């Protein structure tokens, strides 16, 4: 049997088995999930033949599946992150209700992503895209929180994006007579400008929506923070990358090569704006989940910028960042999930000082944060370096400033995140907190190890990226295992930096631990005497409250402008319109009869112009 079909069958079968397993009992279900989580990546890495293709004709549409290097690159994200998240989920979701639905949807979204990345035609791309969308919708509203607000918002935006794609697809089919991606790419040059823009922008709309680019990001914070964290790591890490995947081939493959880089530039600008605004929003979040959600949006903004610029280096930077983002956001969401499960809250004004209680979680988060912030020894630095370099060589200095501003501001929320949850004073109410179960810790640790290794040897990833970029029309992309050489001829050896930093860091840590234990005294954060002023019990005086108050005051004018508001107003307006329109069904049977007669009169009066006799 064809290995690609078998892969899809394994995932779908796994979904069904997990569903029924969990319907029977939790232990059986968990074991099934665990086995499935192991089998999928093992099968993918060892058995899947990437040269194989499947082609079939359904309902008159020719479908074709087969990997290319670009799809394979993204598949790696899915195949590494998703099983880890599944294993994590076993621990995280323990004793929750409706587990059968959870794992079923989880595996189906993996099925969707896997399918997207091997689709060579638009129909199967769309099918898998929709499967991914509805399964993730079920997970977004899984806890039943804000079903009306967040869930519907997610579904509306997803549907808008998907249908924009669908419209592009049928227009492409009308123009090329084929549903194949490859035919579209070859025929693109011959389209009229309108068709080029219409199809390209509609496709971009769909993809950009999934990767939460600025005006289309409003679904993301709520969706990311309401979803069970076990899935959010995949959601933000892998699923949003499907948007990047699509943007890659639309922007780079079509517009950048068709001398229409203006489209890509617009996208890049949107990405940069997204990055800045989302970073600022992230800084002022008190809920760690929300913080990470905004941070995700910001990171995706960088990636989109990289893709949008569309030069060799920028695309490479974007893709590298995409892979790193999958890893570190995966870890961070898992860590928040662990905190949520163990401490019962993710509010950074409530939870604090968990570093001693949950050291492994802290370690993993720390590594991830370092990678995220782009601090030298880890991969984030390399990626950002490449991004800056590509922007500078391309002459987009304003964008450099924006990205730089955003990256710097990112330190603020990184610090807030680490401090809020793990550092600071530990309150007595968290005395009982224990480290999360190994099922949850091991995936985090594995991912952070991956981050460390790629920090020292970025080439491990760059190799695949370079291979993947051949499908985007960039051949002979140069890369080195551990040395980065820039346009101006300077080179940096990461191996050495990494080792040096690690040594210093470890030494400092040991020193700190030793000193910290010696000299710390315990004071309750809630026992503060204020001169002459009465403190009400509900006043929370922990450090994490109003963490960046002065900064917030400065940024107030920017933050006041909330795009969400406009969407809400628009939605309300639509609802009012709908309410108005349905009044034509007055409930009076006679009125309906009058409609019939009116219609007859209209047709008779205009019969000449309608029928043109």
């Amino acid at each position, binding site marked *: 049997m064809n290995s690609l079909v078998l892969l899809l069958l394994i995932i779908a079968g796994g979904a069904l088995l997990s569903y029924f397993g969990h319907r029977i009992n939790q232990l059986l279900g968990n074991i099934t999930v665990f086995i499935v989580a192991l089998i999928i990546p093992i099968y993918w890495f060892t058995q899947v033949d990437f040269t194989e293709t499947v082609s079939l004709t359904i309902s008159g549409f020719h479908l074709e599946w087969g990997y290319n290097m670009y799809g394979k690159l993204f598949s790696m994200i899915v195949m590494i992150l998703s099983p880890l998240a599944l294993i994590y989920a076993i621990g995280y979701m323990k004793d929750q209700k409706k587990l059968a639905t959870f794992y079923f949807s989880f595996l189906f979204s993996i099925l969707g992503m896997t399918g997207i990345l091997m689709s060579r035609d638009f129909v199967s791309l769309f099918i898998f895209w929709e499967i991914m969308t509805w399964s993730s919708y079920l997970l977004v509203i899984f806890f039943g929180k804000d079903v009306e607000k967040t869930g519907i918002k997610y579904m509306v935006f997803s549907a808008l994006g998907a249908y924009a794609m669908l419209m592009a697809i049928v227009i492409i089919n009308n123009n090329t007579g084929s549903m194949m991606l490859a035919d579209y790419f070859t025929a693109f040059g011959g389209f009229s400008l309108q068709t080029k823009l219409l199809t390209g922008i509609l496709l971009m709309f769909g993809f950009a929506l999934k990767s939460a680019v600025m005006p289309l990001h409003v679904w993301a914070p709520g969706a990311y923070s309401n979803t069970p964290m076990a899935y959010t790591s995949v959601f933000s890490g892998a699923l949003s990358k499907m948007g990047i995947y699509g943007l890659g081939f639309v922007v780079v493959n079509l517009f950048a090569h068709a001398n229409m880089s203006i489209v890509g530039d617009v996208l890049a600008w949107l990405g940069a704006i997204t990055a800045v605004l989302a970073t600022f929003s992230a800084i002022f979040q008190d809920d760690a989940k929300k913080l990470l959600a905004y941070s995700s949006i910001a990171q995706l903004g960088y990636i989109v910028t990289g893709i949008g610029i569309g030069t060799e280096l920028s695309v490479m930077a974007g893709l590298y960042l995409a892979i790193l983002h999958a890893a570190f956001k995966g870890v961070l969401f898992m860590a928040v999930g662990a905190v949520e499960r163990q401490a019962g809250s993710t509010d950074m004004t409530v939870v604090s000082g968990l570093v001693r209680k949950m050291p492994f979680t802290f370690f993993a988060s720390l590594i991830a944060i370092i990678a995220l912030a782009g601090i030298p020894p880890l991969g984030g630095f390399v990626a950002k370096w490449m991004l800056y370099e590509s922007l500078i060589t391309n002459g987009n200095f304003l964008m450099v400033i924006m990205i730089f501003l955003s990256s710097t501001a990112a330190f603020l929320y990184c610090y807030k995140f680490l401090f809020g949850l793990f550092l600071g004073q530990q309150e007595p109410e968290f005395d009982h907190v224990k480290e999360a179960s190994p099922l949850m810790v091991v995936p985090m640790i594995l991912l952070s190890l991956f981050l460390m290794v790629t920090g020292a040897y970025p080439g491990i990833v760059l190799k695949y990226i370079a291979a993947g970029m051949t499908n985007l029309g960039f051949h002979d992309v140069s890369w080195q295992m551990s040395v980065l050489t820039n346009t101006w001829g300077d080179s940096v050896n990461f191996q050495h930096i990494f080792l040096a930093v690690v040594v210093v860091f470890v030494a400092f840590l040991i020193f700190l631990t030793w000193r910290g234990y010696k000299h710390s005294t315990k004071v309750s954060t809630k026992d503060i005497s204020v001169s002459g002023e009465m403190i009400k019990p509900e006043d929370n005086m922990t450090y994490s409250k109003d963490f960046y108050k002065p900064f917030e005051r400065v940024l107030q004018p920017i933050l006041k402008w909330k795009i969400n508001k406009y969407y809400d107003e628009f939605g309300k307006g639509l609802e009012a319109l709908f309410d108005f329109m349905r009044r034509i069904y*007055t*409930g*009076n049977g*006679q009125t309906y*009869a*009058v409609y019939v007669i009116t219609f007859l009169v209209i047709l008779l009066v205009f019969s000449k112009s309608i029928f043109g006799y």
Partner: protein
Amino acid sequence: MQEFLTYGIYGTAFFLMLLGLYAALVKKNLVKIVIGLSVLDSGLHLLFVAVGYISNGTAPIFSPAVVGKNVVMVDPVPQALVLTAIVIGFGVTAVALALVVRLYRKHNTTNIDEIKNLKW
């Protein structure tokens, strides 16, 4: 004369139909609406028969009196159709009136404006 009858009969038929339609569309009383529908039907039936009529035709019956003679007969097809239509109209009227009785029992009124529990 022919023309007068054309417009006279067609006109009457249409007039009855429009009267019926008017009652069905404007009158508020349920029974009146059904009366309107019935008048509408009457006009329609008249139209059918009038369209089927052929000048100086006889009824389409080969009674012993006409067998073998060369007579013009009126078009029997509209007559057959209108037979069916009359019976169907009667059936619809009966159902409509039964519904009126039901509505009256529920709402204690026969004003169609007051019977709109189902709307929007």
